[in-house]
């Protein structure tokens, strides 16, 4: 595993609330291989977005990264100056968000917003040159009539087109890593598939790495090379996609897999696991999953299981993993 583009070690992100400090991300270790896709899955509120914003150092007040390391190509992002970090954003790590409707600024043209991203990292580029490059970027994300779209405003575009613009903007400076936080959740199914196809093709073209955040296991199965399952601010299982889906080892993953959503039904209804993710201010002692775990034993209430290797390249944070043991 020497060829990791991004390594996250012991990352902890806290929010100051009136009830004291809460950790939305609590000791996460992850790595993203070069040119590959890491899928991060987990139910709503388990800390996926906070994790990705922590990598970008964009966690908003009252949150802050309290501990850990985030190394991009061996360079610790958390110890960079603000100016150095600004240079990393957009040019080395770019991000797209869940809400294509609100993620673009309604008062500026699409072209302005794309060229602005380019100019932020290349102050000397000429206007005409920027325009050509932006239209190129729009072409690459397969937006029809890019010359005309360049001068349009976001409200003149559909949701899918806006997400394409977001991708064009994110890729404008050829980042090494693209963080996509639920890029298709707000889109309808056919558009979803088109956007995912596009991301895959662009990855092949550019060799960038992708962190794909979603709570849709179908999307992960289709897109990810590696998968991390998060629960209540921690990674509970990590494995190559094949191993995770073929041989899940953590009871939570098992529960999620038992509830792979069908496209025509509501996701929430299909969670086989009873209950919901505990909020960071009401975490149970011991294994955070124990109140919902069908396999819990008394020790689970006192000991927080660390993420440990169970098989080659396969880690789980469960005292009783691998799960086959439970069958006995």
């Amino acid at each position, binding site marked *: 595993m020497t060829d990791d583009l991004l390594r996250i070690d012991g990352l902890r992100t806290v929010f100051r609330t009136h009830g004291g400090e809460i950790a939305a991300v609590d000791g996460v270790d992850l790595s993203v291989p070069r040119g590959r896709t890491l899928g991060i899955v987990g139910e709503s509120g388990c800390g996926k977005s906070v994790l990705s914003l922590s990598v*970008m150092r*964009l966690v*908003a007040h009252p949150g802050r990264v309290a501990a850990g390391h985030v190394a991009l190509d061996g360079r610790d992002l958390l110890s960079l100056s603000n100016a150095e970090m*600004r*240079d*990393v*954003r*957009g*040019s080395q790590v*770019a*991000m797209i*968000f869940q*809400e294509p409707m*609100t*993620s*673009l*600024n*309604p*008062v*500026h*043209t699409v072209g302005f917003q794309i060229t*602005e*991203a380019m100019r*932020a*990292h290349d102050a000397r580029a000429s206007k005409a040159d920027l*325009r050509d490059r932006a239209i190129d970027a729009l072409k690459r994300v397969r937006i029809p009539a890019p*010359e005309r779209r*360049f*001068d349009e*405003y976001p*409200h*003149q575009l559909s949701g899918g087109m806006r997400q394409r613009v*977001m991708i064009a*903007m*994110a890729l404008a*400076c050829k980042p090494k890593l693209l963080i996509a936080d639920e890029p298709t959740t707000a889109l309808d199914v056919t558009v979803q598939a088109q956007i995912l196809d596009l991301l895959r093709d662009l990855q092949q073209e550019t060799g960038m790495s992708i962190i794909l955040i979603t709570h849709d296991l179908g999307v992960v199965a289709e897109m990810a090379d590696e998968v991390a399952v998060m629960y209540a601010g921690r990674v509970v299982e990590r494995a190559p996609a094949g191993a995770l889906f073929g041989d899940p080892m953590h009871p939570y993953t098992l529960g999620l897999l038992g509830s792979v959503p069908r496209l025509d039904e509501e996701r929430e209804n299909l969670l086989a696991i009873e209950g919901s993710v505990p909020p960071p201010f009401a975490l149970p002692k011991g294994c955070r999953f124990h109140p919902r775990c069908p396999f819990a034993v008394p020790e689970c209430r006192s000991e927080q299981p660390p993420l440990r290797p169970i098989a080659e390249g396969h880690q789980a944070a469960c005292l009783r993993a691998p799960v086959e043991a439970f069958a006995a």
Partner: protein
Amino acid sequence: MARRQARRRRNNVLRHAIHRLILAIPVMFGVVLIGFLLMQVVPTDPATVRAGPTATPDVIEAIRSDLGLDQPLYVQFGLYVWRLLHGDLGSSIINNVPVVQELGATIPATVELMVASLFWSIPLGILLGTLAAYWRGSLLDRAIMAISVAGVSVPVFFLGLVLIWFVGFQWQLLPFTGRAGPFYTPEGAMSLILPAITLGGVFIGPVARMTRTAVLDVLTADHVRTARAKGLPERLVVLRHALRNALVPVVTLVGLQIGFLLGGAVVTETVFSWPGVGRLAVGAILSSDFPMAQGCIIVLSLGFILVNLAVDVLYAALDPRVRAA
């Protein structure tokens, strides 16, 4: 291509402006009607005022028919509108000077005062509001908000009197009565300073507060996060992606304060003996000079409508979503 787009944008704004202008016509008519009716319900009789305290009843009667006051109301109104359309607003009852001439002499003074007041107070209010929003909760924020609350609660006349007392009277730094000339002459500019500080001063607080709220709102928007994720420096994030968007609601809210501003102008002109429409209106009303008062009301209302129109057009220019509609 970009040029064609820019032209289309301008055309859209222009179309929007014309549309609004047409909508303003019935409003204008209503203003004239209400101004006319208001003068009818005032218990004083113009003919009596014109005739003076010693006049006999027949003299008053003669003046009455001379002024057309013995005609039915709708005839009087029709006549009034007819003359108005020909630029004739009648003459002062007191000194017989044509109302239009008097207005022509006072309008530049009022426009000058308003422009000078807004010229410094709106940018400063927006700057303070933006700083307060960006550093919300800080000492700076609290100081700015304290100043703006104080600014809102101080009446215009009080601020004017304080400035007159200290700056004008005690320290003798600036003139404080009348208008020494147009703003482009040195004396005129000097005499404009205190009135413009007074009228603008009461406007800073509301503008700062509205800007703060609007910017705070936009700062948490998704597109601001996108701007940061692109690697833009904070200065551009705030200017282009927070303040630029916040200007849309700020312009609307500032527009709603225009009435307040006109009222303030009337008071400011009175306090500083500034020879503008506001002071003319006050004088006309106090001396029951009906044609003059009516003329002032029409001009002030027209000003109100025009500024609203300008706000509307500005709003459309700032927000592409409005423009398209």
